[in-house]
């Protein structure tokens, strides 16, 4: 396969539409992902994220529109698409009755890797995902985090230039989640393009270079995490004083820069509009030499959670156990 030229995007969704009987699961989704970058598809359960990924990975045929992966069209060159990408599904789709090693060997054999290459690739992946010791154990005995890592390892057998991850950390404990993020960052450093779906705003914020927000099958916003946060209102300068007694004096100091601000006594915090960062340095200078001891002085942008709430009118993360979009259909 010739390497895709650096100018063409690694992944393109081109007006993707998918209907299921009387429902519209995906409605005219278009985006492109530059090579070596991370795209986060963010949205609540049932938003159409999984269906979008299934269309981009040749598993599901679009009702209309198409997608290209590493320059190959999913409709006309599905085999070339499958050669260029790896997919880590929503539930860890590794075989429970096989050992970790046997899972990797099966996929290597299906890719047509010769035995010695398969052995080397398997050893590398098991080592890299800290599964070497468990490699001869049946997957049934693995923890949730280990299964996810194996699932990811299996997707990487052919070192695909593009990797699709459907809710890679759903159901993982916080520690395993952070570990998986580190692994994904390494992949990006090595030049892999990632498309990941998530309903965790923090995950999109941590990993994605660009975010596409989907709700009810439609794109409702897109941009870098920073752009999305900026869209959702101005940043604020937040000053936290060390001693509550200093609050009145601190207010006077700030009043010399900005007339309006907000005080939260309990948190010993004063928030003032950042005025496009201009106020930030002035406020810092004003406190310098004021003799008031500060715990913190910084810029606070609205979180992605705020962004999501403003865009959709509801929160992205629901406290209930995450269910797959499949199950909702």
């Amino acid at each position, binding site marked *: 396969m010739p390497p895709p030229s650096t100018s063409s995007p690694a992944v393109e969704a081109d007006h993707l539409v998918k209907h299921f009987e009387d429902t519209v699961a995906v409605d005219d989704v278009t985006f492109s992902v530059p090579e070596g970058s991370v795209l986060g598809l963010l949205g609540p359960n049932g938003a159409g994220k999984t269906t979008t990924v299934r269309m981009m990975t040749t598993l599901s045929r679009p009702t209309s529109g198409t997608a290209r992966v590493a320059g190959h069209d999913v409709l006309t060159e599905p085999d070339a698409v499958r050669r260029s990408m790896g997919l880590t599904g929503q539930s860890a*789709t590794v075989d429970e009755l096989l050992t970790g090693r046997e899972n990797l060997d*099966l996929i290597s054999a299906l890719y047509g890797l010769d035995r010695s290459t398969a052995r080397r690739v398997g050893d590398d992946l098991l080592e890299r995902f800290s599964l070497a010791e468990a490699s001869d154990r049946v997957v049934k005995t693995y923890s949730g985090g280990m299964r996810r890592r194996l699932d990811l390892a299996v997707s990487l057998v052919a070192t695909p230039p593009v990797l699709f991850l459907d809710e890679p950390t759903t159901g993982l404990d916080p520690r395993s989640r952070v570990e998986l993020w580190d692994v994904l960052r390494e992949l990006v450093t*090595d030049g892999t393009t990632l498309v990941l779906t998530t309903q965790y705003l923090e995950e999109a914020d941590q990993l994605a270079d660009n975010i596409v927000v989907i709700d009810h099958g439609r794109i409702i916003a897109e941009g870098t995490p920073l752009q999305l946060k900026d869209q959702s209102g101005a940043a604020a300068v937040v000053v936290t004083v060390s001693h509550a007694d200093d609050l009145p004096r601190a207010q006077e100091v700030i009043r010399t820069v900005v007339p309006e601000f907000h005080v939260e006594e309990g948190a010993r915090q004063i928030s003032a509009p950042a005025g496009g960062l201009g106020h930030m340095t002035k406020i810092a200078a004003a406190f310098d030499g004021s003799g008031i001891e500060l715990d913190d002085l910084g810029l606070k942008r609205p979180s992605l959670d705020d962004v999501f709430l403003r865009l959709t009118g509801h929160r992205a993360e629901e406290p209930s156990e995450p269910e797959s979009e499949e199950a909702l259909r």
Partner: protein
Amino acid sequence: MTTTPARLERPEIRRTTLLTQSLAITRRNLIHIKRMPEMLLDVTIQPVMFVLLFAFVFGGSIAISGGDPREYREWLMAGIMGQTIAFASFIVAVGLTADIDKGIVDRLRSLPIHPAAVLVGRSISSLLHSSIGIVIMSLTGLAIGWRIHDGIARAALAYLLLLAWGFAMIWVGILVGATMRSVEAVNGLMFATMFPVTFLANTFAPAENMPTLLRIFAEWNPISSLVLAVRELWGTPLPPAEHELALPLQHPVISTIVWTVVITGVMAPLALRAFKRRTDV
């Protein structure tokens, strides 16, 4: 992420044939049997138990040409083998549903392999699975007096017919597996249909003695053709027919081949369509 992308070394992806891919999947399915030998109960303990139950519990009361129990035992063997191989559909359906359910089928479909490899691999392992049952039953049969009377060539043809029948049944299994939403549903449906269908034939008792309507059903039941063909090819002593047999039973070997082709011809397109619909979501 501003690090200069380091080009990763990619292992060479070689083109492989459908057969290679299917065998890799077959191997995986056989590892399942190795890890869970109880999966083989349906082709080991169960048919052997049937042989023993029918031969020694009912055998005395089911009259075959003068009621020699030894002849009934021999007569019974083809019937139980026919039933066991018909259950190949059951094995395929359960395995396929479980794989779809767990996302394994999606995982395999995302790889650059032939779309049919998943089904072919499943079919080969199911046929092997059922064949184990045929071997075990042949051995059980030998122990209780069953014999091959008409030479190896005809006996081999009998085994071939059983395998061909199993192949046709696999398509039924794929159709059921792709349609049903859970392994439990597959179990329920298959028990409710396969048991009566395999009993309403000349498998365990001669159709001769059944009420007219059932007898007609039994004689036209494709399994009856298979079982009678196998009996004839093995040279199993047959009771003299009292009625004129239904058309398929007058030429059981040819009927079995025709049935196999017809069932495959009808079921395969339906099964493939159901599988496509089920997975393309």
